């Protein structure tokens, strides 16, 4: 009887195995397609992550702290500020508000990714969870190569970046002051990445109103409010100007066509 049932079910098992293998192939192809794009982030995150881990170490924290913080927060600027928070008197409300202020720009990224991350089942929870500056820049700008699963591609870009950041900061926390940096200036890799992403976006638009609004608002606010508090006013002004000039921007073709609009979606 048991043998009979096994025999009847065998084709289904075989089918399941085949589907699992194909799914594995989809994942492996997406990983292989995603990896090259994350190499600059690897350089930048290992450099910044190491620096951050070393900073935590010399501030008297075990490597567990940078490791856990990089895992659950995954945001460099806030994590650096958190070192100061952790050695100051306990002030939960102030901590929470300061964290919200530093991280507020992520709301922009979430809005921009709404359409791209739509319908990506459970993956989108991780995709929003890990939406840092660099991951947003890549996933918004990159065009998913033909034949590669969109969801897995975005997933692996996010996951690889996350792994680079966690491993870099943990290593820094372990090595501590043993690390001697003669890599002065390597932090520029992040600026270079943002410049290239900016240019990539620039060449996809007919008119550049939105880029210029962002540049002007940020520079003016930086000069007015200083490096530590210019982001929020800059974001406010950007939002205001974009809403005020919505009609002329849309009319003049100042928006990019998203990849979905230019190419047919992969099945």
């Amino acid at each position, binding site marked *: 009887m048991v043998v009979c049932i096994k025999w009847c079910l065998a084709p289904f098992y075989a089918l399941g195995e085949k589907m699992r293998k194909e799914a594995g192939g989809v994942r492996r192809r997406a990983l292989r397609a995603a990896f090259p794009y994350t*190499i*600059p982030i690897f*350089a930048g995150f290992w450099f910044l992550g190491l620096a951050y881990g070393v900073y935590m170490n010399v501030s008297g924290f075990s490597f567990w*702290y940078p490791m856990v*913080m990089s895992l*659950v*927060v995954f945001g460099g600027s*806030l994590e650096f500020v*958190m070192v100061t928070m*952790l050695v100051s008197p*306990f002030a*939960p409300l102030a*901590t*929470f508000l300061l964290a*919200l202020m530093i*991280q*507020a*720009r992520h*709301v*922009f*990224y979430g*809005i*921009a*990714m*709404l359409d791209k*991350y739509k*319908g990506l089942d459970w993956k989108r929870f991780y995709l929003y*969870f890990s939406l840092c500056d660099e991951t*947003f*820049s890549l996933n918004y700008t990159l065009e998913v190569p033909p034949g590669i699963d969109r969801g897995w591609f975005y997933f692996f870009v996010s996951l690889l970046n996350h792994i680079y950041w966690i491993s870099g900061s943990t290593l820094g926390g372990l090595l501590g002051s043993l690390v001697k940096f003669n890599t*002065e*200036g*390597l932090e*520029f*890799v992040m*600026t*270079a990445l943002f410049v*290239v*992403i*900016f*240019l990539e*976006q*620039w060449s996809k638009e007919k008119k550049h109103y*939105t*880029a*210029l609004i*962002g*540049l002007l*608002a*940020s*520079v003016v606010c930086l000069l007015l409010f200083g490096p530590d508090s210019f*982001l929020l006013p*800059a*974001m406010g002004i*950007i939002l205001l100007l974009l809403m005020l000039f*919505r009609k002329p*921007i849309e009319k003049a073709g100042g*928006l*990019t066509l*998203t990849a979905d609009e230019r190419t047919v979606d992969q099945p």
Partner: protein
Amino acid sequence: MNLTEQIIVIALCAFATMLTRFLPFLVFSDKRPTPKYISYLGKALPAASFAMLIVYSLRNIDLSGGSFAIAEVLAIIVTCALYFWKRQMLLPIAGGTLTYMLLVQLVF
């Protein structure tokens, strides 16, 4: 600060971060179509955000204090030139970064 307080601080920062990253997703659900003005912002914000990120990553340069802004300007020019020459991502990032490292380590 004791361990419990430290855990609370880390949890609060993680929660605040998640709030900012998930907010648009939570407000505009997958099932209903996204409102028109949010779709517009979704397309208008990236270019503005990338510009903001460039300024953000350069926020600590000291324009009054000597020669350092020259290194940044030169490295950005090299990055742009390589980008428009080859139209790909890795080469300009590597070239710009190397230029910057050489300049700050050897020249300035």
